[in-house]
């Protein structure tokens, strides 16, 4: 199951970046995206132990380049989210590669895919919000809001972890 998802994610990431760059007539970057995707896919098919982190960084760079060249941000976010998921799942696949096929392995794969899907979806949705909601803030106010956000984040992590413990 994981293998097929990884293949799909690599193809999608590569395709989105290629299409977006072709639309911008940046053919060289489009070709680079396709070639990187093809190599990653090939290595993934052949060895299952491709240098995932390298390809993750390559696609991250391409996404950043696209953002700097004012490509539509939802596309770039989608490409980054898919790249992140592909990287995570390919690492996961390497870890479970030696494991024999069993019910527990299937359950592990399913749970992992579900949790990852939820995580990246939430990240994608939250990241989409700033593209539709625009706020003009003073830099000092921005810093204060950032500080507040970090505190809230810390508290929420502690709270959620405690909740999880109690529910167990």
């Amino acid at each position: 199951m994981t293998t097929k998802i990884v293949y799909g994610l690599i193809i999608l990431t590569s395709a989105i970046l290629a299409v977006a760059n072709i639309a911008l007539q940046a053919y060289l970057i489009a070709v680079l995206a396709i070639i990187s995707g093809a190599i990653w896919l090939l290595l993934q098919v052949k060895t299952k132990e491709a240098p995932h982190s390298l390809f993750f960084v390559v696609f991250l760079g391409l996404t950043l380049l696209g953002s700097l060249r004012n490509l539509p941000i939802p596309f770039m976010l989608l490409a980054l989210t898919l790249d992140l998921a592909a990287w995570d799942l390919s690492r996961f696949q390497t870890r479970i590669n030696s494991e024999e096929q069993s019910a527990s392995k299937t359950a592990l794969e399913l749970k992992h895919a579900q949790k990852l899907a939820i995580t990246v979806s939430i990240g994608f949705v939250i990241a989409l919000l700033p593209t539709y909601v625009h706020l003009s803030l003073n830099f000092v106010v921005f810093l204060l809001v950032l500080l507040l956000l970090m505190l809230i984040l810390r508290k929420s992590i502690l709270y959620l972890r405690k909740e999880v413990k109690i529910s167990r």
Partner: protein
Amino acid sequence: MKMPFMLILSSIFGIIILGVISLHADVVVLSIPLVAYLFAAILRRPEEIKLSVTREIYPEYVPEGMPVTVKVTVLNQGASIDELVIEDILPKGIQQIDGTSSRIALLEAGSKMEFEYTIEAQRGDYKGYEVLVKASDFLQLFELALIYRTSTHLIVYPPYTKLDRIKIRPPQTHGFAGPIPARQGGVGIDFWGVREYQTGDSQRQINWKLAARSNQELYVNVFEQERVASVGLIVDARLRTNLVSQSGSLFEYSVRAAASVAENFLNDGNRVSLLIYGSEMSRVFSGYGKSQRDRILRALANANPGVNYALESLMHLPTQIFPAKSQIILISSLLPEDIAIILRMRSQGYAVMVISPDPVAYEATTSQEANDLAYRMANAERSFILQQLRENGVQTVNWRVDQPLELAIRETVSHQPAIAFNHMVKM
């Protein structure tokens, strides 16, 4: 810090810095999915591992080369773990032949995980095992590793071959019937002598030919009694008598020979004791039966060659621990200075047999240089040692370990009959 964690963290900071430098808000937005990813990992990060690891090994007492099944059960007594990697660390000398000794699984609170695999172990006594446990969040950014120790006991004893009855003739035997000639007339198979007829003797025992020659006197045949005896096995575990090659250690052959000989004598009902003389002296007291065989095999499973400067020579061999006038069987590849000690044992009244795995032939087989001068000289020196022992009434088995022990004993002992007790020792 794990590499993926560092990569995500540096990516987040990199994106933010790039966005700030380029004054491009869209770039900063790209960091949000990565922050969410990191947040999820922190949320699911394992804080502690509370597991109960148990191991079953069956069978726990096996000969070398037999497959052994190991079953590991892990019970989660703490919180749910997204990804748990269990790696059973195999002790040195154990080889996995089937199944897998590591597992990765999701382990809910209170649930358990089991896995089985098959191993093959070298001779030894395996007491402690380690299980490496790694718990991590489902994104594997944070990991907690622990080592659990289990104390299941596995004893792998040396394999032994069944030998034909080894003919020995110790000066003293015990009262119970057995296969060893007792040097006393009575009920037996081998002819011992004649004596005058006494009232109550069976007519079947009368030696009619002798009676016909004598003057109205009757004589009866007397046979040699056969009884059990005490046999003391000495295994030479000195490091300097051991040879190690790519194919293995000569000491392993000594251990196997000791196991075979012990089995042989115990099967005949004899009392057998064992002394392993090497880095220390470990001893199994005299006994008989299956339980004694197990005791000896356990001691042999633990035997290893070692250095002890106090025990460099057989001079300190405590022969007095063996019953007087009993049979001693020394299993050693022999050094020239050992001759005097072995002859001293003979002079003390013991019947001595030496089973000597041939180190010269062993070295020659492994090094493929059997024709050079050094080999011939070593061979001559060894032949001289063995010859001296034979001349002094020591039964000597020169065992080329590439041949079966059975063959070596049959060939050698049949040509060297057990020496009578009162044989002169040339000192």
